[in-house]
Each structure stands twice: as structure tokens, then as C-alpha cells.
């Protein structure tokens, strides 16, 4: 068996719900997380990502399946005996202790000699760029600083795996961006496996080596940022990550990797399919707005004429909503890269949109 830092094997978790019924939070999840990887679990709230993380930490125990850390089955090992540490969403700093005492706490629990503790606390605080903050109280620190202390407190124990539960959720946008870079830098520096839970797709895409997209307790797709964005394997992933227009239709024919899909309006779309599909299968064709162009384009398999129903100028881009025959709408995004660029067409104008077959994906669910 390959020695993964963390492995989840067929893990399920059911909780008793408010009226006594069982609620499944995590369903048959399998995940392999490599050593030194920055791995994110991404999904909307209630998708089971936090529960999965808490099962690795030992705050919850799986109803079925098993969590392995470096090949060791965790079973019902309590959290205080696991070689992992957690950075909590609420920071969870001990309010009655100073920053130094907070960071030292974990080392004291491990009965590290006093002299070593002082040095390691000092090192940990300078690592998160808070040197000399030992004697302050958590309340005297800003949110971002408290977050750094929480990181130092978890990292000072040199865990095999660091678990982060939406650690940047409470910070404002600018600080969040800063901390994202900081986290990435720290992870490279210490070389510890990071498992990061977030509902923010941009955060996951920016920082992670690999991402697991989760929904309703199930892992839908695991891959790096590029794979997840360019080759989503289902409608949910395509919709959740970035922006996507969907065209619903039925498979007409398939030639190798490409499918021809009949739209209800009688139009036909040629798009990439990841597997063989029977004629007549109901599918959605997903196209990213930035992969479509306004105006006819030689060589593009798909060319449609529609009416512009909405133009939104965003600055770097302009977004056009185009109404196709048969009440289907697509969004097209054009970069304003030319100097002094203005919208290409006005609302109400008739326009041709085009995109190559490789830019569109046939998705079944």
C-alpha cells in the first residue's frame, strides 16, 4: 500500500438529525492525500467537507470506513493522541492565556523540556511574522494576527498533517489574499501536508496542489486546479467552479471524443465527451463564457446566431448575455484588451457567437 499522508477509505458519517432521523453528512468518501501536498476540500456549506476534516482530526469518528494517517488506522483514537493539528475557523485561542502560553500549550502537553519550549515558541512566532508577541493577550490582537497565532500554535508541534478549517473565513478580502500567499509560503517552508477546507473556489484554486470538490457528502472530482476548471466531470463541478453556460439537449451521434447534441430548438452543438454515450441520452453542454467569441470565426465547429439581451461592462471584461433560439441563453465574455475598447455590440442587436468543439463539454449529471 502506498504510504499516503492521509487516506480516507469508504468513509461515511451519519448524525442523528433534529427530529431523530439519521442525516448522512459524508457518503462513502475515498481520498488519498500525498505527503507534503496542499490538498483542499471545496464545496458549499453542508457538503461534508468539514465533517471529513473533523474525522481526520478525531473530533468525529466515522460511522463506516476508516481513516489512515501515514498508513496507521485511526479507528477511535482520540484527537489528543493523533499526529495532526488543527487551525480552527474561530481560531479558538485560549482567552485566558498569553500568546506565548497559547503556542506553548501543545508542547507542554507533550512534556517538552521548558528550555526547548521557549525557543520553539519564539521560532514559531517569528515564522508567522509575530516575533516578540509572547506576552500579549489574544484580545489585543487583530483577526489576522490571531489567525497567525493559531497557525503557530498548530505548527509548533510539527504535526504530520495540518488541518485547516476555513481559516480565512472571518478575514476581509485584502487580508485574506495576503494570508493565502502566507499559507502557501509556510507550507513550502515546513513541507507539512496541509488539508484545507474552504467554500471559496478562488482560494482553493490559488493555493492547492489538488482539490476535492464535494457536494452532499460525496466527492465529485479530485484533481489539480487546471483539471477541475478545464475538464469538470459533472454539471455541479462545472457550475461551482467558475462560470458556465449550460445548453440542455440529447445526444444525436458520437465520433470518437466528440458528440453531436441536438438542442430543443433544432440547433446542433458539437462538444467533447469524456465517455461513450448512447443516442438519445439527455445531456448538458457546458461552455465557459471566456471560451466563446462574438462574431463568426473560421474553423469553429459551433456558430450560432442570437440576440444580445444584456451587456455588463466589468472593466477588464465585458459580459454579454445572448439569447439563442428556443429560449436558451449563454454568457459570452470578451476581454477589453485593446486600448480604449468599447462594447462590441449593443443590447438588442443580432450577433453570431462561435466556439470550437474542444471548448464545450458534454456532461451527463
Amino acid at each position, binding site marked *: 500500500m502506498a504510504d499516503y499522508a492521509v487516506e480516507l477509505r469508504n468513509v461515511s458519517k451519519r448524525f442523528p438529525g433534529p427530529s431523530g432521523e439519521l442525516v448522512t453528512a459524508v457518503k462513502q468518501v475515498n481520498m488519498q492525500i500525498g505527503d507534503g501536498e496542499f490538498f483542499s476540500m471545496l464545496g458549499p456549506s453542508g457538503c461534508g467537507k468539514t465533517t471529513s476534516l473533523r474525522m481526520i482530526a478525531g473530533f468525529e469518528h466515522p460511522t463506516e470506513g476508516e481513516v489512515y494517517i501515514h498508513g496507521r488506522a485511526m479507528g477511535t483514537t482520540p484527537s489528543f493522541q493523533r499526529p495532526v493539528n488543527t487551525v*480552527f475557523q474561530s481560531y*479558538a485561542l485560549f482567552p*485566558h492565556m498569553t500568546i506565548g502560553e497559547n503556542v506553548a500549550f501543545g508542547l507542554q502537553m507533550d512534556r517538552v523540556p521548558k528550555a526547548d519550549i521557549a525557543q520553539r515558541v519564539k521560532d514559531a512566532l517569528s515564522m508567522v511574522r509575530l516575533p516578540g508577541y509572547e506576552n500579549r493577550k489574544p484580545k489585543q490582537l487583530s483577526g489576522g494576527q490571531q489567525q497567525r497565532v493559531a497557525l503557530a500554535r498548530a505548527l509548533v508541534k510539527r504535526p504530520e498533517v495540518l488541518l485547516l478549517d476555513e481559516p480565512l473565513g472571518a478575514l476581509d478580502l485584502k487580508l485574506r489574499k495576503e494570508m493565502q500567499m502566507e499559507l502557501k509560503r509556510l507550507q513550502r517552508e515546513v513541507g507539512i501536508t496541509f488539508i484545507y477546507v474552504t467554500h471559496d473556489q478562488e482560494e482553493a484554486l490559488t493555493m492547492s496542489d489538488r482539490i476535492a470538490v464535494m457536494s452532499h457528502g460525496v466527492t465529485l472530482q479530485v484533481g489539480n486546479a487546471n483539471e477541475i476548471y478545464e475538464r469538470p466531470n459533472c454539471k455541479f463541478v462545472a457550475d461551482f467552479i467558475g462560470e458556465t453556460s449550460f445548453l440542455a439537449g440529447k445526444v444525436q451521434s458520437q465520433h470518437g471524443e466528440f458528440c453531436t447534441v441536438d438542442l430543443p430548438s433544432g440547433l446542433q452543438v458539437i462538444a467533447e465527451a469524456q465517455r461513450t454515450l448512447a443516442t438519445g441520452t439527455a445531456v448538458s453542454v457546458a461552455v465557459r463564457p471566456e471560451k466563446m467569441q462574438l462574431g463568426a470565426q473560421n474553423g469553429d465547429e459551433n456558430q450560432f446566431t442570437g440576440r444580445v439581451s444584456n451587456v455588463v461592462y466589468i472593466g477588464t471584461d465585458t459580459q454579454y448575455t445572448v439569447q439563442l433560439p428556443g429560449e436558451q441563453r449563454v454568457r459570452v465574455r470578451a476581454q477589453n484588451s485593446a486600448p480604449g475598447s468599447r462594447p462590441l455590440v449593443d443590447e438588442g442587436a443580432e450577433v453570431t457567437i462561435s466556439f470550437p468543439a474542444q471548448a464545450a463539454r458534454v456532461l451527463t449529471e
Partner: protein
Amino acid sequence: MLQKLRQDARLQGLLLISPTLLWMMVLLIIPLLLTVVTSFGQRDTDGNVIYRFTLENYTRLIGFTAEGFDPLYFTILWRSLALALQTTVVSILLAYPLAFYIARAVPKRRNTLLFLVLVPLWTNFVIRIYAWIMILRTQGVLNSILGWGAGLVGLPFTPLDMYPSQGAVLIGMVYEFLPFMILPIYTSLEKIDGSLFEAAADLGANALRTFLRVTLPLSMPGVVAGTILTFIPVVGTFVVSDILGGRQVILVGNLIQRQFLEARNPPFGSAVSILLMVMTLFFTLYYTRRFGFGEEITAG
């Protein structure tokens, strides 16, 4: 007039606090001053106060009488303080686990449990203390149960002599003031952010060390508040000792009561009251200086 009020912030402030000020004057400051004045006064043979300055009440309290030195009143004071201290300590030991249990129960159950803590307070205080006589006396409930139990295992049993005694007074005091210890401790335990316990476990602390390093220090504000709410009334109370002590256990509260009602000596009663108040003040000052009111460590 109104114009002036609009412009004068000080006048506005004064007007705003005036109801409270009036209340405090009538119910607290004036009676207190009266007590101080009376404590330096004398009495006539009928027990009326004569407002003529004397230190006699205080010298008598310290122990100097016409017959020589007698530390009688000091003994009473000491006994009251010791009993109040015992009551407080026993209350903390009983209230803490219970408050802990309630704070950890699921929210729905918590309300039921808190309700049960408060239910006894619906019955009159004196009646509840009298009920303890039924429980503790020689032919009482407790002795009957013990005797029945001893009979079952075939042991000889002589009923325990529990009432009246100082022990009975202690039981009554603890019983009476336990809710006032449970509630503040519960409140401070309940306020602790649950993720702190997880953080402690995550950092390698087992249940005991989590309790000692996180739970206990964070619940100290409740223990301090409970101590103040228990200790101060217990030092001054006289009903429990009167009923369960069978008039043998005389506390400073009994002393004051008897000076006013039986000995008809308000000046001396006032002097004892003032001394008790000063002692309580010093205790509270020392205690809060030492342990704080706890604001600085509340969770959040």
C-alpha cells in the same frame, strides 16, 4: 428652564441618575448613616436610643466589660466567618460538578435542569429550613432510613444525633445557598466556546488536563461571583442557625437580631452590624483583588 437643560450636559446627567440616587438615598445611605450614628449612642432602660456620643458599644464588642476581658463576641464572629467559609467551600464542591453537568447537557435538557435547580425557591425559605428538622431529627427521615438499612444487613443501630447541631446549620446553609452558587458557575461554563475544548484536545490535552488548564480557569469568574453571592449573605443570616441550631449555635446574625428584638439594645446591635459590614467589605476587597471579578478572562 428647558433651554438651560438642553445646553447643560451636567444637569442632564444629574437628572438622569436622580431616580436611582433617590432610591439609594432612601433605602441604603440614610439607613446606613442611622446605623452608624446609633452605634455610637446609648439606650435608656426601656430600650429607647439616646443620642449621646459614647464608644462603650465598641469597647464592649472588643471584649472589655465591667467584669474584665471576655472574648465572647469575637468567638461568635469567628464562628460565623468559619461557618460561612465552610458553607462556601462545600457549596463550590457540590455546585461545580452539577453546573458542569448542566452546561454540557443538550440545550433542551439544560432548561429542564435549570428549572429543577430553581423549583425549591418557590417554597418559603423558613418552611424549607423547617423541613430539614423532619429529615435530621432523632426520629427523622434520615435516621429511619439508616435504621431500616442497618436492620436489613443485621447491624445494631443507634439513631444519630444530628439535630440540633452546628453540622445541621451547615447543611441548611449549603442547601439554602446552593442555587446561588450553581447559577453563576453554570453561566460562566456555558459561555466557554466549545471549540476551545477541541483545540485543547487537538493540542494533546486529555480530559483532565483540558479541565485543569482550560475549563477551570475560564469558569473562575462564576466561582468568584458564586462565592460573593454565598459568603456575604451566609455571614449575616440568622434564620438557619436559629431553626437548625436550636438556639445553641449563635452566629453574628443571631446576635444582632437579639440585640434589637430581645435585649432591646439597638446601639449595641448597630455596633455589631457595622463591624460585620466592615469585615465583609475587607473580605470582598481582598477576594476580588486576589481573584478578580473575572472580566479580563471571559471567553470570546
